[in-house]
């Protein structure tokens, strides 16, 4: 039997939960959030949107199918080159796994990537706590080594998650600029085909729209309010007349660029079962989501309209320009992890690009 060290999860409000460490044995801190997805821990942990967060899985028994070898290309289950979350918190951990594609256990992977793993907690009690009190900061104490709380929403995180240099993917005729705010590889994979080239730009690169046929603003971590410096470039792009698509953080940034407000949700939407409906009509989709902030629909300027709403809490899930080829969505059409119901949005973007 493996021996697991005791560890403490200490919340900002003083609550303490006890568990066992199964990952990297070092204290850490961040924003405590929960995800209700039942599969997809490899995809989730490598999603840059979780940067600086301590991620709770509400699904109780995790690690069952292990972890595959890292992929360097855009298709595969690693959404970035490394684990982005600071800790993974479980009810029960499966050290032994069985899946043809897997090479190591979840615990070994966390250790290799210096990420904390915690199990043996009542994750439902923890989730209810966050649901009632709202998302909050927390720290995990291992070997009694205390660390300060860390609030990723008060930091400018983009340098941590964006590419340092421009990267070019594919060699198709249509050039799509991708503003990398912590982009997932599946977004790139979904944009790539034999007719497209994706130019992945660092968050602070100038958006020279005359050199591109369209723009995608990626998902990413943190409070969109922290990223005011990106807005002028986006505002400019939104006057180019060229197709622009925003995803998650990209959606919030687009909304802010056109003057709408964003606000912090009590505990965010993180899961693979978030229902959205087309604002006009009866068509609904199940979507993958991972965000703590949302766009306030009633602050949209008149030339924009709400495109999708969340069926559970009626929060905004997408906006679209009434005449120009710009739209953005709060959810993740690239899925990974999650359902593929809204992958057609990439097709819609291609259509705008006349592909």
């Amino acid at each position, binding site marked *: *039997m493996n021996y697991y060290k005791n560890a403490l999860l200490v919340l900002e409000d003083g609550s303490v*939960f006890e568990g066992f460490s199964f990952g990297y044995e070092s204290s850490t801190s961040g924003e405590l959030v*929960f995800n*209700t*997805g*039942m*599969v*997809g821990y*490899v*995809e989730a942990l490598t999603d840059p949107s979780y940067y600086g967060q301590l991620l709770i899985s*509400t*699904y*109780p*028994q995790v690690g*069952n*199918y292990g972890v595959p070898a890292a992929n360097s290309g855009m298709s595969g*289950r690693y959404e970035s080159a490394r684990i982005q979350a600071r800790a993974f918190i479980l*009810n*029960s951990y*499966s050290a*032994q*796994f*069985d*899946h*043809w*594609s897997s090479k190591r256990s979840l615990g070994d992977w966390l250790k290799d990537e210096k990420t904390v793993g915690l199990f043996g907690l*009542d*994750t*439902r*009690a923890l*989730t*209810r706590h966050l*649901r009632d009190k709202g998302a909050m900061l927390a720290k995990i104490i291992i070997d009694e080594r205390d660390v300060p709380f860390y609030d990723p929403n008060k930091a400018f995180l983009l340098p941590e998650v964006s590419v340092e240099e421009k990267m070019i993917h594919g060699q198709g005729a249509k050039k799509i600029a991708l503003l990398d705010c912590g982009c997932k590889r599946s977004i790139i994979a979904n944009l790539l085909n034999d007719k497209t080239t994706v130019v992945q730009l660092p968050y602070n690169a100038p958006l020279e729209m005359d050199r591109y046929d369209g723009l995608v603003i990626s998902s990413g971590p943190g409070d969109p309010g922290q990223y005011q410096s990106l807005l002028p470039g986006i505002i400019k792009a939104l006057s180019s007349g060229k197709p622009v698509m925003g995803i998650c953080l990209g959606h919030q940034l687009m909304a802010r660029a056109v003057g709408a407000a964003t606000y912090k949700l009590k*505990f965010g939407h993180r*899961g*693979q*079962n*978030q*229902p959205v*409906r087309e604002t006009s009509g*009866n*068509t*609904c989709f*199940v979507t993958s989501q991972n965000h703590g902030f949302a766009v306030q629909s009633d602050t949209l300027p008149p030339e924009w309209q709400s495109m999708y709403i969340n*069926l*559970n*809490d009626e929060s905004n899930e997408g906006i679209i320009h009434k005449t120009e080829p710009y739209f953005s969505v709060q959810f993740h059409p690239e*899925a*990974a*992890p*999650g*359902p*593929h*119901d809204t992958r057609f949005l990439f097709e819609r973007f291609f259509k705008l690009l006349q592909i």
Partner: protein
Amino acid sequence: MSQKPGKVLILGSAALKIGEAGEFDYSGSQAIKALREEGIHTVLINPNIATIQTSDHLADQVYFLPVTAYFVEKVIAREKPDSIMLAFGGQTALNTGLELYKNGVLEKYNVRILGTAAEVILDTEDRDLFVKRLREIDVKVARSYVAESVAEALDMAGRIGYPVMVRIAFALGGLGSGICADEKALKEKAEKAFNHTPQILVEENLWGWKEIEYEVVRDRFNNCLTICNMENLDPMGIHTGESIVVAPSQTLDNQDYHLLREVAIKVIQHLGVVGECNIQYAYDPHSRDYRVIEVNARLSRSSALASKATGYPLAFVAAKLGLGYGLHQLRNSVTQSTSAFFEPALDYVVVKMPRWDLRKFRKVSYSIGSSMKSVGEVMAIGKTFEEAIQKAIRMLETGPLGFAGESFSFDDIPRALSIPTDIRLFAVAEALRRGMSVDEIHGHSFINRWFLYRLKGLIQLERELSALEKPPGKDFLLQLKRAGFSDKQIARIIGGKEAEVRDWREQHGLFPSIKQIDTLAAEYPAQTNYLYFSYHGQESDVDAFEEETVLILGSGSYRIGSSVEFDWCAVNTGRTLRKLGYKTIMLNYNPETVSTDYDEFDMLLFDEISTEAVVELFRQLKPSGVILSVGGQIPNNLAVPLKEAGIPILGTPPESIDRAENRRHFSHMLDSLGIDQPLWQELDNVDSAVKFARDTGYPVLVRPSYVLSGAAMAVAANEAELRTYLQKAVELSPDHPTVISKFYQNAKEIEYDAVARNGEIIIYAISEHVENAGVHSGDATLVLPPQRTYLETIRRIRRIGQKIAKNLKITGPMNIQFLAKNNQVKVIECNVRASRSFPFVSKIMRKNFIDLAARAIMHRDISSQVPTLFELDYVGVKAPQFSFTRLEGADPVLGVEMASTGEVGCLGEDFNEAFLKALLSVGYRLPIKSMLVSSGSIESKAELLESLHLFKKSGIQFFATEGTAKFMRANGFNVQTLHWPLEKKKPNCIDYIRDGMVDMVINIPKNFQQDELSNGYLIRRAAADYNVMLFTNRQLVQRLAEALSTKTMEDLKIESWESYR
């Protein structure tokens, strides 16, 4: 919304049978609720009188009539519904509906099918069409060919290469499906199959692939959801109804999960299902390759399971979608605040296990495969697979207290792993115990290693525990509890007592948390109390009610002898208590029930029905007492242990329950009250039993205590048999006394159901059996009011009933079985609980016995008028449903141990009418044009003579085996002789049965029980295998002959329940 229907006809699934059980009572009830909420008039056809859906508070009109095209058409003509729902009554309803669609009846009467269109159902039901439709969208379907003859099947198998999988379309529960290793096996299987179906499928063999299911819903706006996915622990090759199923899937990664989800949605959209459907996959364990196996465009056993596993009310939603609603227009009924358009997120693990009763049958094969044999199922919920599966094993109530700590002996472990049987899981345990590696076990069984690793952990804990020399410490005890070990299981492993382990837990403060199922993994608060226990929690999600609360124990898994009737009792108890102002808690774990619907009670604790669970429930939820007399034998058996644990039991005192259940105490009591009973003796030792038998004369009846449905009860005709049965009885019920008694032949058996308060009878019903004593009451045909019982007999029965009730201080339901011969009345059994016939007598007499029982138990006044038997001017007949066709090899004969899986109850102006309706409801067919008669002894031949003369008048063509033919000819019959099966000469009985040349077989067995491979057995088995009507009881034949001589189909009146008042 499209135009709303005004009157909807709903078809039920008739009697419970293997492959079609209680799940359809649940789905039908939900559908009716959904329609009622809309103010739509509902008409239900279902002869299953024990169901909740046929209660008077649900459908506006109920017809206790066969679900066949003939009767449904008659009801349509009478009721003139504008719409019909086919998806809620299993394959029976679907097939009947399709027949009415195809023969133009629906069109003729202008009846619209709500939900999925008939064409779409046909696409999914006809395998050839189905494959074609799926190929249109490049969805991979298992390579398969349709064969319409044996020769064709052989040809196709040649093309695919052996082994091949044979599947049968239009069949419930995959009847007769299976893997054929070679031409000979295929030939045999195909011949049998073509008796039930015009076509079979010969398919590529996907043995060892993972088997995965998704439940999908779609509305008319093309919005789709997958509500739940499920993974079978047993890989492909074993019917999903026979598999251990885990929800959600455990070994699929994100890509696997969403690939299959996407295919499911693509398929349902392409087919155009509106409502619910189930899709089954084979999934390659070594790649992302898949095959679609099957799509069921109706509510199914899996959808009932998925509803319970997730809290998403699939049947209710499907009914609403059928009316034209969109998913987004409906609310999530658990949260009340969020949308019904969402996919449940589970924060727990669910394990379903099938319950088999194979060991009740003689000669039956214990191997399980691609056709269904199980009679019920259990569902366990835990935070981990280990916690859930150990609970599930206990819930089966077949003896084992969990995966660990149980020793089964296997001669050949690899074989026991590779050839699945009802106890394969314990072969895995034994293999692990003997140190076989996970890889090797996987190699034999193909069970995914992840499951095996988890199971291995349990065996490691077992080893650590049994090596302990002192009580386990707090940490280890918690580890055990989290892994699903029960107190009793721990006690068994260390050789201690359950109460001792409970003491240790109490000392350490280790108690389970009560967790809620809320469909959204705690993201939104739930308004319903759908709960389970887990030791993985630090807090409970709910608190005790402020108001007075009563706990009601449900029936547990359906099994032979305990079925939907107890669900009816439990649900009705809850309804009455709520009316009386109590808060109610239901404890049950059967996913096929209405009682496990989270809105039937104020709280539903979906967990084990055990002393431990009840004690923990009382600790936290603080009910004022528990009712254990309405859920059948399982709760009843807890009377003494619960009393010892200090739990307040409502109703009849537990001491009385013990006096009735304990054969010795009960027999003594009868003696002291001067109530006659068959001569009896308690078993001290085998020799004294043998002496008793010699003195009183054979046959004698061997009866263990505290058993259900006559388990291990047997009639011994001689000393050798007696010794064997005594051994069995002692093994089955070692803690309780076994009694032997004189077995009386040619006596009538009478059923007495009653409700008492403080020992005073409030209401009673007396029903007589058609069959003479010796046929288990659950297998007997019941008549109410009695037609052939002397008034004096009835008077005596009433007096004895009152005496017993008084002496046992009964408060609540009770049931007594009597033998009657020439006004001599003997008591053979008494149950101080609701019986199987409670719903039947309640519905026939139009007085809810359970409602009265619940009021009596709560010491409320019972003021309303109670009807008496003599006021009824119609007759009710309850008939058993057998599932012998599915139980390969089982001898289809009636005895003292119960064998039927379900029942129906029908009404008529007289016995003959009700009787014929009941027979037609359980699958008998009219007209009968030819019959094979094969009767054992000369006495039985003579006794049959009168019946045969009656049959002769209706122009029936007779075939008979040699002796019977000779006898019949001598009595003036024109009869053709057929050779015995073992004679291997033509013309042979077996050929005639197989080729459908006889409509009916009468075979009266010579002995009560015989184990050799006899001619009689082969004839009976052939009748079961080839679906030919079989009669093995003389009284039944006689009544059939009489009925047919006075009635034809046209004489059977189409009347609703309401018109019999």
